[in-house]
């Protein structure tokens, strides 16, 4: 990717074509572990989003001083500092969510999506682009976390946005929606197997949409132009896997 990449293209890549969770399949450990409810997914998604933007900006700004030979340890150091800061902030201001996310908050350090963007994009692009890339990639990751959390919470508990108050404060207690009255719950959806099955369904759904869109392009459907622009855009190679 060159510095001339437009911001629109960056957003398209982050949200859809190179979605870190659905396409690059990075950061699956927290993705699968914490998405038992919408609120948990949202909390970790926001933390990851903040981490991605901050680390991308720092890595991009520090380009002139980081030697190529030691760049990966430097990235890890930067990411660890940022994550620790976010963790301490969360512990101070959002105690309940901090406890709910548990070990997966500090584990953002090892989220391959973060170091992947640092290495593949931020270390070779100007600050503004790096910030935009971090924001788009983080937003794409956040979207998948929330979608998977919603799917599992809906099937598992029959609710949406339960325990919203631990993320958003006491006023959010009314946000919980009981979708099906008198629902018995379906525990396997909340347990880890539900995460794997749910993620597989989301990936399948995205691929299906892409295929329908490709067919639409062939048929000349104008409303799908959003996807047309990045046809053939090379996906960023997977930097590392967990």
């Amino acid at each position, binding site marked *: 990717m060159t510095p001339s990449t437009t911001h629109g293209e960056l957003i398209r890549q982050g949200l859809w074509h190179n979605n870190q969770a659905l396409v690059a399949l990075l950061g699956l450990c927290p993705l699968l572990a914490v998405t038992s409810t919408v609120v948990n997914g949202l909390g970790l998604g926001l933390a990851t989003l903040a981490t991605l933007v901050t680390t991308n900006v720092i890595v991009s700004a520090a380009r002139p001083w980081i030697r190529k030979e030691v760049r990966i340890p430097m990235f890890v150091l930067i990411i660890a500092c940022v994550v620790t800061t976010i963790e301490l902030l969360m512990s101070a201001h959002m105690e309940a969510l901090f406890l709910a996310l548990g070990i997966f908050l500090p584990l953002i350090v090892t989220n391959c999506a973060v170091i992947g963007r640092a290495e593949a994009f931020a270390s070779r692009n100007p600050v503004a682009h790096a910030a935009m890339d971090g924001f788009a990639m983080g937003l794409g990751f956040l979207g998948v976390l929330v979608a998977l959390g919603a799917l599992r919470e809906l099937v598992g508990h029959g609710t949406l946005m339960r325990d919203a108050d631990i993320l958003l404060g006491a006023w959010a207690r009314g946000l919980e929606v009981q979708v099906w009255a008198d629902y*018995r*719950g*379906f*525990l*396997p959806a909340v*347990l880890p197997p539900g995460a794997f*099955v749910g993620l597989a369904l989301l990936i399948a759904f995205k691929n299906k949409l892409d295929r329908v869109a490709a067919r639409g392009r062939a048929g000349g459907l104008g409303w799908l132009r959003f996807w047309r622009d990045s046809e053939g855009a090379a996906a960023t190679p997977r930097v590392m896997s967990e």
Partner: protein
Amino acid sequence: MRAGQGLDVAQGGAPFIPPAKRVRRIMTLVLVALAPGILAYTVLFGWGPLVNITLATASALGFEALMLRIRRRPLGPFLADGSAVVTAVLLALCLPPLAPWWLPVLGSFIAIVGAKQLYGGLGYNPFNPAMAGYAVLLIAFPLELSTWTLPLALQQAPADLAATIAYSLGGAGTGGLDAMTAATPLDRLRTGVGLGEAMTEIRAAPVFGILAGRGWEWVNLAFLGGGVLLVLMRVISWHIPVAVVGSLALISGIAFFLGPNHYPGPLFHLLGGATMLGAFFIATDPVTAATTPSGKLVYGAGIGVLIYAIRAWGGYPDGVAFAVLLMGLTVPLLDTYLRPRIFGARRPRVRDGS
């Protein structure tokens, strides 16, 4: 592949004889062999099993047809091969006799759509579909799956067919039917052992019969009869059932020998719960079981040991489903390493480092 073995052609050795029994014939024979057990189950426990089987079979065929349509496969040959029916019947036989209608239907959905068709249909599923459906149901609805009825002989006013269907569809008249549910022999055993009761005390409870659980002993014997028929007709080989039953008998026999007051005898384990159904009909699933003779023995023995382990030390009273699923995970490994030696071939020599 081990080194120096040459071509990797087939699992077994020569002679290669074309299969005479088609899938449909095998599945029909399996259903016929299940009949005595289903009959005994119905006679001893009421109409519930038949209602469950009907619901599960109808919904399984429906889901199979739906998935075949979505996957653009021909409906006729795949629906007629009978594999979905066998899956549905096995699943239904694992459910409590009196179950709400959505239990067999949801189980069929998980078994057919989730465990079978999403993996590519018959022959491609890594897990036994019926047991996958049952295991998910058991984890999701532990209360419904552990509410078992007493044998008819112990019930005050047994439900007739109409009352059973009414219960299944809407829970109508549940007030009377709820009174008939009770702990199964395996439940009773678990509770008794937990309380430190002596085995003679536990065995004196009315849910126990002559050999094992009251009613269950005859159901298991009927499944054993049907299973032996399948072995004699060469539909299944003897390896897996013998290994399951043998290892379960051995390990429960050792426990009984060491502490006859704290452990039920091997006969109780062999004729209790779903042992015979599991050994002859579920563990022998041609798709998900091991395929080589020595592999089948290891696979079956593992299932027997796991059944005992789950019953004695696990969280659930019976463990056939989890035992079959867990050993199913080992099948690729067993099939790779436990191949029969091809006639005339020598064992590859272990070479030293030089």
